[in-house]
């Protein structure tokens, strides 16, 4: 069920929050051996919150669509009194004494936190094959990765344990697990959602956002999360708006850019077919497909790597005397960052200025542009390279090809299911919007979702 379906059932007294939460807890427990989606389950506090939510609704206190809805969050969001591991042994016993801004806002909206999800160590990778807490597995095929770094959130939503789990996205870490697990993933504009209390990976690249079962659910969560926060210096003062697309949302007249270069190169043929079919549907619904050429995205991705190397290694520098406690893949990335000169970091930030200006010219022609979210569907656990369209690359570089550059630009991006590939795994379309035009990509995404119903695709799981 989606958030809105649960919310309707709650208000129709067909179900209680206590029942929804208990069902989520039962499902999480039943699927944990198969998926390893959770690092911490908060059963007692969740049941108590659910009872309170039910009591409030009975008294006529209605906090909105998230009221009484079971949710989960990635384990890098600080939760007062609950350990926050960031998927790392270094933080294994870290118990914050405050809540992240995201937790505060979700709690104020009445959402019920049932647990904290597994992730790639320190959010620095895309497999969520964690050396300390075990591999998180894909609900569509447990031999495959769920993506990352918000892999547990992708698995929990993809499996239907919860209708929403929070993720963070520094170079695709919301959109990749959303794509691999068949969920919707929203990376808002940089500064739209406060980063306060989220353990950092790349200060200028980190974005917080939801993974959900529908586009409208992501919009409802953004309604709760968006807004100024003086505790995050990067958080925008721009007022938020109502992001939920209306019933019957339309793409008629929306100019959707379809890149002629880069984004459809080296793509698995069945992924490309699904994405292009989805775009034809958009056209049939009245959207105007506009061929565009984009600046050198390989260069943009290189800039992203320099920025992330330097920022992540700076963030973790004080812990590097414990580098032996960090898994080999993340340790290698952190070690590389320690050798990036300061001049390269500054020049990468200067190149960012150039690319934001040059890439921004697309907005003269289109309202948003569409790409595959990932060039392939989920690789297998332990797989080191992936091949797509005759091009072979490291799984991390392949998975991030179409998403990480968008973090350098800071623009909003939505990943939404658009079918299955030849192996029966989910495929995802990425819609990238103008800065702070989350409403535009959510409206287009909702119209496509209404027309195709791909968000209803679900994996076959035991005891279904």
């Amino acid at each position: 069920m989606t958030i809105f379906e649960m919310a309707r059932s709650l208000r129709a007294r067909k179900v209680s929050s206590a029942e929804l939460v208990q069902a989520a807890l039962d499902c999480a427990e039943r699927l944990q051996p198969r998926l390893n989606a959770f690092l911490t389950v908060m059963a007692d506090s969740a049941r108590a919150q659910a009872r309170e939510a039910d009591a409030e609704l009975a008294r006529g206190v209605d906090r909105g669509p998230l009221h009484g809805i079971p949710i989960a969050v990635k384990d890098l969001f600080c939760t007062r009194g609950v350990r926050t591991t960031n998927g790392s042994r270094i933080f294994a016993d870290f118990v914050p004494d405050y809540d992240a801004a995201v937790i505060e806002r979700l709690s104020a909206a009445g959402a019920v936190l049932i647990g904290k999800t597994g992730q790639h160590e320190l959010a620095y990778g895309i497999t969520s094959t964690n050396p300390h807490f075990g591999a998180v597995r894909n609900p569509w095929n447990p031999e495959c990765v769920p993506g990352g770094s918000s892999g547990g959130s992708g698995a929990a939503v993809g499996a239907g344990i919860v209708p929403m789990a929070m993720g963070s996205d520094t170079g695709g870490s919301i959109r990749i697990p959303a794509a691999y697990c068949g969920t919707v993933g929203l990376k808002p504009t940089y500064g739209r959602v406060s980063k306060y209390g989220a353990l950092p990976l790349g200060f200028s690249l980190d974005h917080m956002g939801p993974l959900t079962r529908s586009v409208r659910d992501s919009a409802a969560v953004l309604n709760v999360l968006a807004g100024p926060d003086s505790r995050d210096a990067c958080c925008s003062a721009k007022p938020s708006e109502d992001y939920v697309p209306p019933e019957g949302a339309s793409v008629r007249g929306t100019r959707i850019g379809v890149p002629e270069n880069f984004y459809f190169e080296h793509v698995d043929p069945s992924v490309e077919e699904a994405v292009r079919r989805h775009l034809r549907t958009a056209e049939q619904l009245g959207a105007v497909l506009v061929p565009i050429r984009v600046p050198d995205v390989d260069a943009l991705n290189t800039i992203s790597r320099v920025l992330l190397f330097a920022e992540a290694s700076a963030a973790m520098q004080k812990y590097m005397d414990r580098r032996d406690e960090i898994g080999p893949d993340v340790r290698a990335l952190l070690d590389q960052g320690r050798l990036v000169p300061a001049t390269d970091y500054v020049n990468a930030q200067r190149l960012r200025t150039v690319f934001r200006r040059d890439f921004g010219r697309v907005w003269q022609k289109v309202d948003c542009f569409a790409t595959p979210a990932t060039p392939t569907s989920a690789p297998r656990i332990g797989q080191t390279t992936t091949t797509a369209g005759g091009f072979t690359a490291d799984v991390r570089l392949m998975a991030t090809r179409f998403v990480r550059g968008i973090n350098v630009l800071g623009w909003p991006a939505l990943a939404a299911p658009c079918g299955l590939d030849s192996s029966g795994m989910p495929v995802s379309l990425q819609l990238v919007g103008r800065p702070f035009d989350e409403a535009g990509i959510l409206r287009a995404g909702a119209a496509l979702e209404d027309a195709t119903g791909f968000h209803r695709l679900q994996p076959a799981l035991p005891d279904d």
Partner: protein
Amino acid sequence: MAGAEERQEPAVGLADAARCPAMIRCLLKMKNWKEIALASDVGLSDADVDRIAPGLDALEQAFRPLAATLSFEVEPAVVFRAGEGEE
């Protein structure tokens, strides 16, 4: 007189260089990451550096030409606003 303008490229070919990784790095103007790691005092062993050097070399090759395109007036995309938000 041995002025800089008279300096010649090393009289070695790639076949010679292939027997000596240090020579390859010199010929290709690549960085010596082991020396950089040592000078930076980051506590990386030679084995650590050997593991990450290919990635760093690849990043260098991709990034150096990009950085060379920057003109002096381009500011970094990080903004410092003196005074704003201060008491």
